[in-house]
Protein backbone atom coordinates (compact mmCIF):
# COMPACT_ATOMS: atom_id res chain seq x y z
CA UNK A 1 0.00 0.00 0.00
CA UNK A 2 1.45 3.34 -0.93
CA UNK A 3 1.35 5.29 2.30
CA UNK A 4 1.52 9.00 2.46
CA UNK A 5 4.37 9.80 4.78
CA UNK A 6 5.09 13.20 6.24
CA UNK A 7 8.85 13.19 6.20
CA UNK A 8 9.88 11.10 3.23
CA UNK A 9 10.73 14.05 1.00
CA UNK A 10 12.87 17.10 1.44
CA UNK A 11 10.95 20.30 2.05
CA UNK A 12 10.94 23.01 -0.58
CA UNK A 13 12.39 26.28 0.63
CA UNK A 14 9.75 28.68 1.85
CA UNK A 15 6.84 26.73 0.38
CA UNK A 16 4.08 25.08 2.39
CA UNK A 17 1.83 22.50 0.74
CA UNK A 18 -1.66 21.56 1.81
CA UNK A 19 -3.62 18.60 0.43
CA UNK A 20 -7.38 19.05 0.32
CA UNK A 21 -9.12 15.72 0.13
CA UNK A 22 -12.81 15.46 -0.67
CA UNK A 23 -15.31 14.32 -3.28
CA UNK A 24 -16.99 17.60 -4.08
CA UNK A 25 -14.57 19.27 -6.43
CA UNK A 26 -16.20 22.67 -6.68
CA UNK A 27 -15.98 23.14 -2.92
CA UNK A 28 -12.32 22.16 -2.91
CA UNK A 29 -11.55 24.51 -5.76
CA UNK A 30 -13.26 27.42 -4.08
CA UNK A 31 -11.50 26.73 -0.79
CA UNK A 32 -8.17 26.41 -2.59
CA UNK A 33 -8.72 29.72 -4.37
CA UNK A 34 -9.62 31.37 -1.06
CA UNK A 35 -6.46 30.03 0.56
CA UNK A 36 -4.27 31.35 -2.25
CA UNK A 37 -5.94 34.73 -2.09
CA UNK A 38 -5.66 35.09 1.64
CA UNK A 39 -2.04 34.17 1.97
CA UNK A 40 0.22 37.16 2.26
CA UNK A 41 3.75 37.49 3.35
CA UNK A 42 6.84 35.81 2.11
CA UNK A 43 5.72 32.22 2.48
CA UNK A 44 4.30 30.67 -0.65
CA UNK A 45 1.52 28.14 -0.50
CA UNK A 46 0.70 25.29 -2.84
CA UNK A 47 -2.70 23.66 -2.82
CA UNK A 48 -3.20 20.12 -4.02
CA UNK A 49 -6.67 18.69 -4.42
CA UNK A 50 -7.59 15.04 -4.62
CA UNK A 51 -10.77 13.06 -4.45
CA UNK A 52 -9.34 10.01 -2.73
CA UNK A 53 -6.15 8.30 -1.62
CA UNK A 54 -3.85 6.76 -2.70
CA UNK A 55 -2.63 9.57 -4.92
CA UNK A 56 -1.77 8.55 -8.48
CA UNK A 57 1.75 7.24 -8.50
CA UNK A 58 2.73 8.62 -11.90
CA UNK A 59 3.06 12.13 -10.55
CA UNK A 60 4.90 11.00 -7.44
CA UNK A 61 8.23 12.55 -8.35
CA UNK A 62 6.73 15.96 -9.10
CA UNK A 63 4.79 16.11 -5.89
CA UNK A 64 6.28 18.16 -3.05
CA UNK A 65 6.20 17.19 0.60
CA UNK A 66 2.70 17.47 2.01
CA UNK A 67 2.60 19.52 5.20
CA UNK A 68 -1.07 19.36 6.06
CA UNK A 69 -3.95 17.11 4.99
CA UNK A 70 -7.47 18.47 5.25
CA UNK A 71 -10.26 15.91 4.83
CA UNK A 72 -13.31 17.78 3.58
CA UNK A 73 -16.62 16.10 4.42
CA UNK A 74 -20.12 17.12 3.60
CA UNK A 75 -22.84 16.20 6.07
CA UNK A 76 -25.28 16.02 3.17
CA UNK A 77 -23.42 13.25 1.38
CA UNK A 78 -22.77 9.76 2.70
CA UNK A 79 -20.55 9.22 -0.30
CA UNK A 80 -18.06 11.80 0.91
CA UNK A 81 -17.89 10.16 4.34
CA UNK A 82 -17.33 6.76 2.77
CA UNK A 83 -14.54 8.08 0.55
CA UNK A 84 -12.78 9.71 3.49
CA UNK A 85 -13.07 6.52 5.54
CA UNK A 86 -11.55 4.53 2.69
CA UNK A 87 -8.72 7.03 2.27
CA UNK A 88 -7.70 7.17 5.95
CA UNK A 89 -5.81 3.83 5.96
CA UNK A 90 -3.53 5.20 3.24
CA UNK A 91 -2.12 7.86 5.54
CA UNK A 92 0.89 7.01 7.63
CA UNK A 93 0.35 7.09 11.39
CA UNK A 94 2.94 9.84 11.95
CA UNK A 95 0.79 12.24 9.96
CA UNK A 96 -1.76 12.21 12.73
CA UNK A 97 0.60 14.04 15.07
CA UNK A 98 -0.98 17.34 14.22
CA UNK A 99 -0.73 17.35 10.44
CA UNK A 100 -4.27 16.19 9.71
CA UNK A 101 -7.54 17.93 10.30
CA UNK A 102 -11.16 17.25 9.37
CA UNK A 103 -13.30 19.96 7.87
CA UNK A 104 -17.05 19.50 7.89
CA UNK A 105 -19.40 21.50 5.71
CA UNK A 106 -23.16 21.59 5.56
CA UNK A 107 -23.86 21.55 9.29
CA UNK A 108 -26.07 24.63 9.06
CA UNK A 109 -28.73 23.04 6.88
CA UNK A 110 -29.90 20.28 9.19
CA UNK A 111 -32.78 19.05 7.05
CA UNK A 112 -30.52 17.67 4.34
CA UNK A 113 -28.15 15.83 6.65
CA UNK A 114 -27.39 12.30 5.50
CA UNK A 115 -24.55 11.84 7.95
CA UNK A 116 -24.99 12.12 11.66
CA UNK A 117 -22.79 14.68 13.38
CA UNK A 118 -21.79 12.16 16.04
CA UNK A 119 -20.24 9.88 13.43
CA UNK A 120 -17.91 12.63 12.33
CA UNK A 121 -17.10 13.66 15.91
CA UNK A 122 -16.23 10.09 16.78
CA UNK A 123 -14.01 9.78 13.73
CA UNK A 124 -12.12 12.94 14.62
CA UNK A 125 -11.74 11.76 18.21
CA UNK A 126 -10.48 8.32 17.08
CA UNK A 127 -7.83 9.87 14.85
CA UNK A 128 -7.04 12.49 17.48
CA UNK A 129 -7.28 15.34 15.03
CA UNK A 130 -9.08 18.65 15.19
CA UNK A 131 -12.55 18.92 13.74
CA UNK A 132 -13.39 22.20 12.05
CA UNK A 133 -16.79 23.36 10.88
CA UNK A 134 -17.40 25.79 8.04
CA UNK A 135 -20.09 26.41 5.50
CA UNK A 136 -17.89 26.41 2.43
CA UNK A 137 -20.59 27.70 0.14
CA UNK A 138 -20.79 31.08 1.84
CA UNK A 139 -17.91 33.37 0.93
CA UNK A 140 -17.21 34.98 4.30
CA UNK A 141 -17.10 31.65 6.16
CA UNK A 142 -14.90 30.22 3.45
CA UNK A 143 -12.48 33.11 3.73
CA UNK A 144 -12.24 32.88 7.52
CA UNK A 145 -11.69 29.11 7.32
CA UNK A 146 -8.98 29.71 4.72
CA UNK A 147 -7.26 32.09 7.13
CA UNK A 148 -7.36 29.47 9.92
CA UNK A 149 -6.01 26.80 7.61
CA UNK A 150 -3.16 29.07 6.54
CA UNK A 151 -2.12 29.58 10.17
CA UNK A 152 -2.26 25.83 10.87
CA UNK A 153 -0.38 25.13 7.63
CA UNK A 154 2.40 27.57 8.48
CA UNK A 155 2.89 25.90 11.84
CA UNK A 156 2.84 22.40 10.32
CA UNK A 157 5.38 23.41 7.67
CA UNK A 158 7.69 24.72 10.37
CA UNK A 159 7.54 28.35 9.28
CA UNK A 160 6.65 29.61 12.74
CA UNK A 161 9.73 29.55 14.96
CA UNK A 162 9.28 27.80 18.27
CA UNK A 163 6.00 26.08 17.44
CA UNK A 164 5.55 22.67 15.85
CA UNK A 165 2.54 20.71 14.72
CA UNK A 166 2.62 18.54 17.82
CA UNK A 167 2.73 21.62 20.07
CA UNK A 168 -0.32 22.94 18.31
CA UNK A 169 -2.14 19.65 18.72
CA UNK A 170 -1.49 19.50 22.44
CA UNK A 171 -2.61 23.12 22.81
CA UNK A 172 -5.83 22.23 21.03
CA UNK A 173 -6.20 19.07 23.09
CA UNK A 174 -8.53 20.82 25.49
CA UNK A 175 -11.16 21.20 22.79
CA UNK A 176 -10.57 17.62 21.56
CA UNK A 177 -11.24 16.20 25.02
CA UNK A 178 -14.42 18.18 25.20
CA UNK A 179 -15.73 16.66 22.00
CA UNK A 180 -14.74 13.19 23.25
CA UNK A 181 -16.78 13.71 26.38
CA UNK A 182 -19.80 14.72 24.34
CA UNK A 183 -19.56 11.50 22.32
CA UNK A 184 -19.67 9.31 25.42
Amino acid at each position, binding site marked *: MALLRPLDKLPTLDVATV*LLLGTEETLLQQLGAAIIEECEGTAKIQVH*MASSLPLPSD*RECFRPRIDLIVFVLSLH*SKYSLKTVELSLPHVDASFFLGKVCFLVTGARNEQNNGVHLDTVKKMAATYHSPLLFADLEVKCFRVSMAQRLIRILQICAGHVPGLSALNLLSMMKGSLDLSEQECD
Partner: protein
Amino acid sequence: MDEIVSEFIRRTILKIPVAEILKILRIWNFIPESQLKTINFQKFKEDVCQQVVELCKKKRASMEEAAILDIIYHQTCQIKKIWIVYKMTKTPDEEVDLFDMEEFKDTFKKVLQRALKNVHISFRDYEDNAVWIRIAWGTPYMQPNQYKTTYVVYYSQTPFVFISHCRVKKYIPELWQALMTAGNYHKIRQMELRSLYLDSLKSIVFKQYNQDFQTYCLTPLQEGNTENEIVDPRIINENVKEKERIQRVTRETFGDYVQPRIEFAQYKLETKFKIDSKNGILAEREEPFRCLVKFSSPHLLEALKSLAPAGIADAPLSSLLTCIPHKAMNYFTIREK
Protein backbone atom coordinates in the same frame (compact mmCIF):
# COMPACT_ATOMS: atom_id res chain seq x y z
CA MET B 1 -74.85 34.81 -24.65
CA ASP B 2 -75.68 33.33 -21.30
CA GLU B 3 -73.98 33.86 -17.98
CA ILE B 4 -72.25 30.47 -17.93
CA VAL B 5 -70.37 31.11 -21.15
CA SER B 6 -69.34 34.63 -20.23
CA GLU B 7 -68.16 33.50 -16.79
CA PHE B 8 -66.20 30.64 -18.38
CA ILE B 9 -64.53 32.98 -20.86
CA ARG B 10 -63.72 35.43 -18.09
CA ARG B 11 -62.10 32.74 -15.95
CA THR B 12 -60.14 31.33 -18.87
CA ILE B 13 -58.71 34.73 -19.75
CA LEU B 14 -57.86 35.35 -16.11
CA LYS B 15 -55.66 32.26 -16.18
CA ILE B 16 -53.64 33.47 -19.16
CA PRO B 17 -50.59 35.59 -18.35
CA VAL B 18 -51.06 39.18 -19.56
CA ALA B 19 -48.25 38.97 -22.10
CA GLU B 20 -49.90 36.05 -23.89
CA ILE B 21 -53.51 37.28 -23.98
CA LEU B 22 -53.24 39.14 -27.28
CA LYS B 23 -51.41 36.26 -28.95
CA ILE B 24 -54.01 33.72 -27.84
CA LEU B 25 -56.90 35.93 -28.89
CA ARG B 26 -55.33 36.28 -32.33
CA ILE B 27 -54.99 32.51 -32.70
CA TRP B 28 -58.58 32.11 -31.56
CA ASN B 29 -59.65 34.39 -34.38
CA PHE B 30 -63.08 35.02 -32.99
CA ILE B 31 -62.74 38.73 -32.25
CA PRO B 32 -61.73 40.74 -35.32
CA GLU B 33 -58.40 42.58 -35.27
CA SER B 34 -60.02 46.00 -35.28
CA GLN B 35 -61.80 45.29 -32.02
CA LEU B 36 -58.70 43.67 -30.48
CA LYS B 37 -56.90 46.98 -30.97
CA THR B 38 -59.43 48.72 -28.74
CA ILE B 39 -58.48 46.68 -25.68
CA ASN B 40 -56.43 48.68 -23.22
CA PHE B 41 -53.78 46.36 -21.78
CA GLN B 42 -52.39 48.94 -19.41
CA LYS B 43 -55.12 48.40 -16.85
CA PHE B 44 -55.37 45.69 -14.24
CA LYS B 45 -55.92 42.16 -15.43
CA GLU B 46 -59.53 42.03 -14.23
CA ASP B 47 -60.30 45.10 -16.35
CA VAL B 48 -58.69 43.54 -19.40
CA CYS B 49 -60.76 40.35 -18.90
CA GLN B 50 -63.90 42.40 -18.56
CA GLN B 51 -63.16 44.21 -21.83
CA VAL B 52 -62.62 40.93 -23.66
CA VAL B 53 -65.84 39.46 -22.24
CA GLU B 54 -67.75 42.54 -23.43
CA LEU B 55 -66.39 42.10 -26.93
CA CYS B 56 -67.35 38.40 -26.88
CA LYS B 57 -70.86 39.30 -25.71
CA LYS B 58 -71.28 41.62 -28.66
CA LYS B 59 -70.37 38.82 -31.03
CA ARG B 60 -72.46 36.31 -29.12
CA ALA B 61 -69.87 33.65 -28.39
CA SER B 62 -71.23 30.19 -27.79
CA MET B 63 -69.88 27.40 -25.61
CA GLU B 64 -68.23 25.85 -28.67
CA GLU B 65 -66.03 28.84 -29.28
CA ALA B 66 -65.27 29.17 -25.61
CA ALA B 67 -64.15 25.53 -25.57
CA ILE B 68 -61.81 26.22 -28.49
CA LEU B 69 -60.36 29.16 -26.55
CA ASP B 70 -59.72 26.80 -23.64
CA ILE B 71 -57.91 24.34 -25.90
CA ILE B 72 -55.74 27.12 -27.36
CA TYR B 73 -54.86 28.25 -23.84
CA HIS B 74 -53.71 24.75 -22.92
CA GLN B 75 -51.80 24.37 -26.15
CA THR B 76 -49.87 27.58 -25.54
CA CYS B 77 -49.30 27.38 -21.78
CA GLN B 78 -48.59 23.69 -21.59
CA ILE B 79 -47.37 23.20 -18.08
CA LYS B 80 -50.70 23.03 -16.36
CA LYS B 81 -51.69 19.38 -16.37
CA ILE B 82 -50.08 16.06 -15.70
CA TRP B 83 -50.08 13.93 -18.83
CA ILE B 84 -50.26 10.14 -18.81
CA VAL B 85 -49.07 8.18 -21.83
CA TYR B 86 -51.07 5.31 -23.31
CA LYS B 87 -50.14 2.96 -26.08
CA MET B 88 -52.72 1.36 -28.34
CA THR B 89 -52.16 -1.85 -30.22
CA LYS B 90 -53.85 -3.37 -33.18
CA THR B 91 -54.47 -7.08 -33.65
CA PRO B 92 -51.46 -8.37 -35.54
CA ASP B 93 -53.24 -9.73 -38.58
CA GLU B 94 -55.12 -6.59 -39.46
CA GLU B 95 -54.21 -4.81 -42.63
CA VAL B 96 -52.89 -1.34 -42.58
CA ASP B 97 -55.75 1.01 -43.33
CA LEU B 98 -55.65 4.64 -44.25
CA PHE B 99 -56.35 7.16 -41.57
CA ASP B 100 -58.83 9.97 -42.10
CA MET B 101 -58.89 12.69 -39.49
CA GLU B 102 -62.50 13.70 -40.09
CA GLU B 103 -63.66 10.11 -39.89
CA PHE B 104 -61.76 9.69 -36.63
CA LYS B 105 -63.40 12.74 -35.10
CA ASP B 106 -66.89 11.69 -36.23
CA THR B 107 -66.58 8.15 -34.94
CA PHE B 108 -65.08 9.33 -31.66
CA LYS B 109 -67.88 11.78 -31.08
CA LYS B 110 -70.58 9.29 -31.98
CA VAL B 111 -69.24 6.51 -29.81
CA LEU B 112 -68.73 8.71 -26.80
CA GLN B 113 -72.10 10.43 -27.07
CA ARG B 114 -73.83 7.12 -27.50
CA ALA B 115 -72.27 5.84 -24.29
CA LEU B 116 -72.73 8.97 -22.21
CA LYS B 117 -75.53 11.40 -22.74
CA ASN B 118 -74.13 14.66 -21.48
CA VAL B 119 -70.64 15.23 -22.79
CA HIS B 120 -69.25 18.24 -24.56
CA ILE B 121 -66.55 17.38 -27.10
CA SER B 122 -64.35 19.82 -29.00
CA PHE B 123 -61.55 19.16 -31.45
CA ARG B 124 -58.64 21.25 -32.58
CA ASP B 125 -56.00 20.12 -35.01
CA TYR B 126 -52.39 20.71 -34.15
CA GLU B 127 -49.06 20.41 -35.88
CA ASP B 128 -47.55 17.04 -36.82
CA ASN B 129 -50.83 15.29 -37.53
CA ALA B 130 -52.04 15.63 -34.00
CA VAL B 131 -55.49 16.40 -32.70
CA TRP B 132 -56.38 17.87 -29.32
CA ILE B 133 -59.69 16.66 -27.94
CA ARG B 134 -61.35 18.46 -25.07
CA ILE B 135 -64.07 16.60 -23.19
CA ALA B 136 -66.24 18.19 -20.54
CA TRP B 137 -68.00 15.56 -18.47
CA GLY B 138 -71.57 15.68 -17.27
CA THR B 139 -73.90 13.12 -15.72
CA PRO B 140 -77.17 11.79 -17.16
CA TYR B 141 -78.95 14.48 -15.13
CA MET B 142 -76.54 17.40 -15.33
CA GLN B 143 -75.13 19.49 -18.11
CA PRO B 144 -71.43 19.11 -18.78
CA ASN B 145 -69.27 20.78 -16.18
CA GLN B 146 -66.88 22.92 -18.17
CA TYR B 147 -64.41 23.07 -15.32
CA LYS B 148 -63.96 19.30 -15.07
CA THR B 149 -62.34 18.52 -18.36
CA THR B 150 -60.04 15.90 -19.77
CA TYR B 151 -57.70 16.62 -22.65
CA VAL B 152 -56.60 13.95 -25.07
CA VAL B 153 -53.76 14.45 -27.51
CA TYR B 154 -53.60 11.87 -30.25
CA TYR B 155 -50.88 11.66 -32.84
CA SER B 156 -52.60 10.00 -35.72
CA GLN B 157 -49.59 8.31 -37.28
CA THR B 158 -48.51 6.73 -34.01
CA PRO B 159 -50.18 4.41 -31.52
CA PHE B 160 -49.62 6.84 -28.65
CA VAL B 161 -52.23 8.88 -26.83
CA PHE B 162 -51.58 11.43 -24.11
CA ILE B 163 -54.43 11.87 -21.67
CA SER B 164 -54.42 14.57 -19.05
CA HIS B 165 -54.98 13.65 -15.46
CA CYS B 166 -58.48 14.54 -14.36
CA ARG B 167 -60.35 14.14 -11.10
CA VAL B 168 -63.34 12.61 -12.88
CA LYS B 169 -62.34 8.98 -13.28
CA LYS B 170 -65.69 7.32 -13.79
CA TYR B 171 -65.87 7.62 -17.54
CA ILE B 172 -62.30 6.82 -18.45
CA PRO B 173 -63.17 3.31 -19.79
CA GLU B 174 -65.73 4.87 -22.14
CA LEU B 175 -63.09 7.30 -23.31
CA TRP B 176 -60.70 4.44 -24.05
CA GLN B 177 -63.42 2.59 -25.93
CA ALA B 178 -64.17 5.62 -28.07
CA LEU B 179 -60.47 6.13 -28.85
CA MET B 180 -59.97 2.50 -29.81
CA THR B 181 -63.05 2.31 -31.98
CA ALA B 182 -62.32 5.56 -33.75
CA GLY B 183 -58.66 4.74 -34.33
CA ASN B 184 -59.30 1.12 -35.28
CA TYR B 185 -57.26 -0.28 -32.47
CA HIS B 186 -57.77 -3.38 -30.44
CA LYS B 187 -56.20 -2.71 -27.05
CA ILE B 188 -55.02 0.20 -24.99
CA ARG B 189 -52.37 0.01 -22.30
CA GLN B 190 -51.25 2.59 -19.80
CA MET B 191 -47.51 3.14 -19.93
CA GLU B 192 -45.64 3.82 -16.72
CA LEU B 193 -44.78 7.31 -17.82
CA ARG B 194 -46.24 10.59 -16.71
CA SER B 195 -45.05 14.14 -16.45
CA LEU B 196 -46.10 17.78 -16.59
CA TYR B 197 -44.12 18.41 -19.75
CA LEU B 198 -45.94 17.15 -22.83
CA ASP B 199 -43.03 17.98 -25.13
CA SER B 200 -40.63 15.88 -23.08
CA LEU B 201 -43.05 12.94 -23.03
CA LYS B 202 -43.30 13.24 -26.80
CA SER B 203 -39.55 13.25 -27.24
CA ILE B 204 -39.09 10.24 -24.96
CA VAL B 205 -41.84 8.21 -26.58
CA PHE B 206 -41.01 9.10 -30.16
CA LYS B 207 -37.30 8.68 -29.40
CA GLN B 208 -36.46 12.19 -30.51
CA TYR B 209 -34.34 13.23 -27.56
CA ASN B 210 -31.02 12.08 -28.90
CA GLN B 211 -31.18 13.91 -32.17
CA ASP B 212 -28.60 16.50 -31.20
CA PHE B 213 -25.89 13.98 -31.84
CA GLN B 214 -22.75 15.51 -33.27
CA THR B 215 -19.66 13.60 -34.15
CA TYR B 216 -16.81 14.69 -31.98
CA CYS B 217 -13.28 13.59 -31.48
CA LEU B 218 -11.06 13.79 -28.45
CA THR B 219 -9.56 17.23 -29.01
CA PRO B 220 -12.68 19.25 -28.17
CA LEU B 221 -12.80 17.48 -24.81
CA GLN B 222 -9.28 18.54 -23.99
CA GLU B 223 -9.93 22.08 -25.12
CA GLY B 224 -12.94 22.23 -22.85
CA ASN B 225 -10.83 21.14 -19.93
CA THR B 226 -8.21 23.83 -20.40
CA GLU B 227 -10.89 26.49 -20.27
CA ASN B 228 -12.15 25.27 -16.92
CA GLU B 229 -8.78 24.80 -15.30
CA ILE B 230 -7.84 27.45 -12.82
CA VAL B 231 -5.10 29.61 -14.25
CA ASP B 232 -3.36 29.72 -10.89
CA PRO B 233 -0.52 27.19 -11.01
CA ARG B 234 -0.43 26.95 -7.23
CA ILE B 235 -3.61 24.87 -7.18
CA ILE B 236 -3.02 21.39 -8.52
CA ASN B 237 -5.60 18.70 -9.01
CA GLU B 238 -4.15 15.25 -8.43
CA ASN B 239 -6.98 13.24 -9.91
CA VAL B 240 -7.27 14.72 -13.37
CA LYS B 241 -7.46 11.27 -14.94
CA GLU B 242 -10.29 10.22 -12.64
CA LYS B 243 -12.16 13.41 -13.45
CA GLU B 244 -11.84 12.74 -17.15
CA ARG B 245 -13.02 9.17 -16.67
CA ILE B 246 -16.13 10.37 -14.88
CA GLN B 247 -16.84 12.90 -17.65
CA ARG B 248 -16.42 10.20 -20.25
CA VAL B 249 -18.70 7.71 -18.49
CA THR B 250 -21.35 10.36 -17.94
CA ARG B 251 -21.17 11.37 -21.56
CA GLU B 252 -21.52 7.75 -22.67
CA THR B 253 -24.51 7.12 -20.44
CA PHE B 254 -26.40 10.34 -20.94
CA GLY B 255 -25.13 11.68 -24.23
CA ASP B 256 -24.31 15.22 -25.14
CA TYR B 257 -27.84 16.47 -25.70
CA VAL B 258 -30.25 18.16 -23.34
CA GLN B 259 -32.26 15.56 -21.48
CA PRO B 260 -36.06 15.46 -21.71
CA ARG B 261 -37.70 17.08 -18.75
CA ILE B 262 -39.54 14.97 -16.16
CA GLU B 263 -40.11 15.84 -12.56
CA PHE B 264 -40.09 12.57 -10.71
CA ALA B 265 -39.25 8.89 -10.80
CA GLN B 266 -40.86 6.44 -8.45
CA TYR B 267 -39.57 3.01 -7.50
CA LYS B 268 -41.78 0.58 -5.68
CA LEU B 269 -39.96 -2.23 -3.97
CA GLU B 270 -41.54 -5.64 -3.49
CA THR B 271 -38.61 -7.81 -2.63
CA LYS B 272 -37.76 -9.91 0.36
CA PHE B 273 -35.35 -8.53 2.89
CA LYS B 274 -31.96 -10.18 2.47
CA ILE B 275 -29.69 -10.42 5.45
CA ASP B 276 -26.67 -12.62 6.16
CA SER B 277 -27.09 -13.33 9.83
CA LYS B 278 -29.94 -15.49 11.02
CA ASN B 279 -30.79 -13.25 13.93
CA GLY B 280 -32.94 -10.23 13.88
CA ILE B 281 -36.61 -9.59 13.43
CA LEU B 282 -36.46 -9.20 9.69
CA ALA B 283 -34.44 -12.31 8.90
CA GLU B 284 -37.30 -14.78 8.94
CA ARG B 285 -39.79 -12.52 7.25
CA GLU B 286 -41.61 -14.26 4.41
CA GLU B 287 -43.62 -11.40 2.99
CA PRO B 288 -41.95 -9.03 0.61
CA PHE B 289 -40.72 -5.73 1.94
CA ARG B 290 -42.79 -2.81 0.79
CA CYS B 291 -40.97 0.42 0.24
CA LEU B 292 -41.40 3.38 -2.06
CA VAL B 293 -38.57 5.61 -3.18
CA LYS B 294 -39.39 8.77 -5.05
CA PHE B 295 -36.89 11.08 -6.70
CA SER B 296 -38.22 14.50 -7.54
CA SER B 297 -36.57 17.55 -9.02
CA PRO B 298 -37.46 20.44 -11.32
CA HIS B 299 -35.47 18.68 -14.04
CA LEU B 300 -34.73 15.16 -12.90
CA LEU B 301 -32.61 13.79 -15.75
CA GLU B 302 -30.26 16.79 -15.84
CA ALA B 303 -29.86 16.46 -12.07
CA LEU B 304 -28.96 12.76 -12.41
CA LYS B 305 -26.50 13.65 -15.19
CA SER B 306 -24.69 16.11 -12.92
CA LEU B 307 -24.45 13.77 -9.90
CA ALA B 308 -21.18 12.07 -10.83
CA PRO B 309 -19.30 15.19 -12.02
CA ALA B 310 -20.31 16.98 -8.81
CA GLY B 311 -18.85 14.19 -6.72
CA ILE B 312 -22.07 13.22 -5.01
CA ALA B 313 -22.27 9.74 -6.51
CA ASP B 314 -20.02 7.23 -8.15
CA ALA B 315 -19.89 6.88 -11.91
CA PRO B 316 -21.42 4.84 -13.56
CA LEU B 317 -24.83 5.42 -12.00
CA SER B 318 -27.22 2.59 -11.32
CA SER B 319 -28.96 1.40 -14.45
CA LEU B 320 -32.32 1.85 -12.73
CA LEU B 321 -31.77 5.59 -12.93
CA THR B 322 -30.20 5.81 -16.36
CA CYS B 323 -32.72 3.65 -18.18
CA ILE B 324 -35.59 6.13 -17.75
CA PRO B 325 -35.54 7.65 -21.25
CA HIS B 326 -34.66 4.37 -22.99
CA LYS B 327 -37.39 2.35 -21.38
CA ALA B 328 -39.85 5.27 -21.39
CA MET B 329 -40.89 4.63 -17.81
CA ASN B 330 -40.78 6.61 -14.66
CA TYR B 331 -42.83 4.35 -12.42
CA PHE B 332 -40.93 1.18 -11.65
CA THR B 333 -41.90 -1.88 -9.64
CA ILE B 334 -39.01 -4.02 -8.52
CA ARG B 335 -39.87 -7.60 -7.75
CA GLU B 336 -37.96 -10.73 -6.93
CA LYS B 337 -36.52 -12.42 -9.96
